[in-house]
């Protein structure tokens, strides 16, 4: 058992009929490490996250979470991980407090009510606690999703575009919350985003995914220079346009 790594993917592959959504993807995340998963739409980022969450079954390859092969461990293993995604809304017809309490029970939190109150305070959601979730602004909903994602104090956090469609001020607030939480609790994070500045600011390592395959891997702050590009965004565009060139490197 490899407890030095929060997450290890080995040759992870997902095929739909003849289409390979994810093609032999391998990487790991160490405790305290934030890894960015980049790629154009349809590159396989969300499918990779969904396989780690256990809601999509891989065609082949292995997923290890905290050294445990997850093959026969779902859904119990999900008590150690959590996620927030732009497409996974919290039920709009429950209040913020009700939603968090229900997820507290789902994740087996002892003294769930107390944990919910702590989180409401930490994420400055107290004044919205009894408001229906559907009435919150996008920024408040994102904060709530993040709050739910931390309810079980996960050792691995999966964030699929957590700041998409948010204004810069709210994005920065959410980023800060996540980074400070990661540092404080030494958790591993897999973070997808189309905001290259965000990735550069928070990630220790990035993986460029295209057509289901990892084309490049490295430090987001040094990679652009290594590939003779002005910045990460330029590198991203070049990879998205001409994946075959980078695929051979």
């Amino acid at each position, binding site marked *: 058992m490899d407890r030095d790594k929060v997450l290890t993917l080995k040759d992870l592959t997902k095929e739909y009929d003849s289409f390979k959504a994810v093609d032999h993807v391998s990487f790991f995340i160490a405790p305290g490490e934030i890894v960015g998963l980049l790629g154009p739409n349809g590159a396989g980022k969300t*499918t990779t996250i969904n396989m780690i969450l256990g809601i999509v079954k891989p065609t082949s390859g292995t997923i290890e979470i905290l050294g445990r092969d997850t093959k026969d461990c779902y859904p119990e293993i999900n008590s150690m991980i959590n996620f927030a*995604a732009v497409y996974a809304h919290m039920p709009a017809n429950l209040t913020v407090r009700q939603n968090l309490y*229900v997820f507290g*029970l789902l994740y087996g939190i002892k003294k769930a009510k107390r944990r919910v109150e702590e989180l409401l305070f930490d994420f400055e959601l107290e004044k919205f606690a009894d408001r229906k979730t559907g009435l919150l602004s996008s920024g408040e909903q994102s904060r709530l999703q993040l709050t739910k994602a931390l309810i079980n104090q996960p050792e691995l956090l999966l964030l699929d575009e957590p700041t998409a469609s948010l204004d810069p001020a709210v994005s920065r607030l959410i980023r800060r919350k996540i980074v400070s939480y990661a540092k404080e609790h030494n958790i591993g994070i897999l973070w997808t985003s189309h905001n290259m500045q965000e990735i550069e600011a928070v990630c220790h390592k990035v993986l460029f995914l295209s057509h289901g395959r990892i084309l490049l891997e490295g430090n987001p702050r040094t990679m652009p220079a290594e590939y003779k590009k002005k910045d990460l965004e330029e590198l991203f565009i070049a990879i998205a346009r001409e994946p075959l060139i980078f695929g051979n490197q």
Partner: protein
Amino acid sequence: MKLSRTAAIFIRQIFLISSNPSRLVSIFMWLIIDVVQWGFISRYLSSLGSDTFSFITVILGAVILWEFMSRIQQGILMGFMEDIWTQNLINLFASPLKIKEYLTGLVMTSFTTGIISFLIMALLAGAIFGYNILRIGLLIIPFMAILLIFGISMGILVITMIFKFGPTAEWLGWPVPLVLSLFSGVFFPISTLPEWMGIFAMIIPPSYIFEALRAIITTGSYDYSIMQRLTISAFLSVIYTIATSILFLHVYKKNLEKGNIARFNAEAL
């Protein structure tokens, strides 16, 4: 199975129902209308003249029991649809929640609303029409238990269809009680049906219940054939529940392979 996770599904539904009066109305209003309407129809039929046969006793009792079963089936469907409408399936199945715990939570919710519905209908029938559902004696317990089990199996069947064919298959689920009522002898004896429908009725558990109910009320006696009918009905209901549960788990696993749970929100299926 962990109780807190099953409770989470139950509590979520209770939060939903209690926070919105229109949901309460949608659950109970139709039942009330059904009881009142059938009560008056039965009273009218009785007034046409039959001193030896009480329409109210036969029809109203059948309506109450049938609505109880329908409430169980639709309670499971409603709970499942809530999770689809609110795009919550991905949150649920990406948590430690086991599929069996999810199903149990839905059944607990539908059982609770089913029992409350039954009590409301029974009280209403008593208050307006002087009908006492308990006049069939302790047999009410096995009758309701069997209808509960069969209602659960039908609830699981319709959510399996939705899981298999996508959210747009929802419309298949709502009319199930209506279709089944044709073959269940709720309002008329099975012998009234054409032969082919009668054959089909033999594999529908409630048909034995309603035949037994009529026999008890018309003859006033509890003979061996009642027990025989109850046994067959219970056996069939358990078989249906086991079969539909296996089918649901199978479809769930297929959905994991096809990646459908993650895409279910989009109604793309």
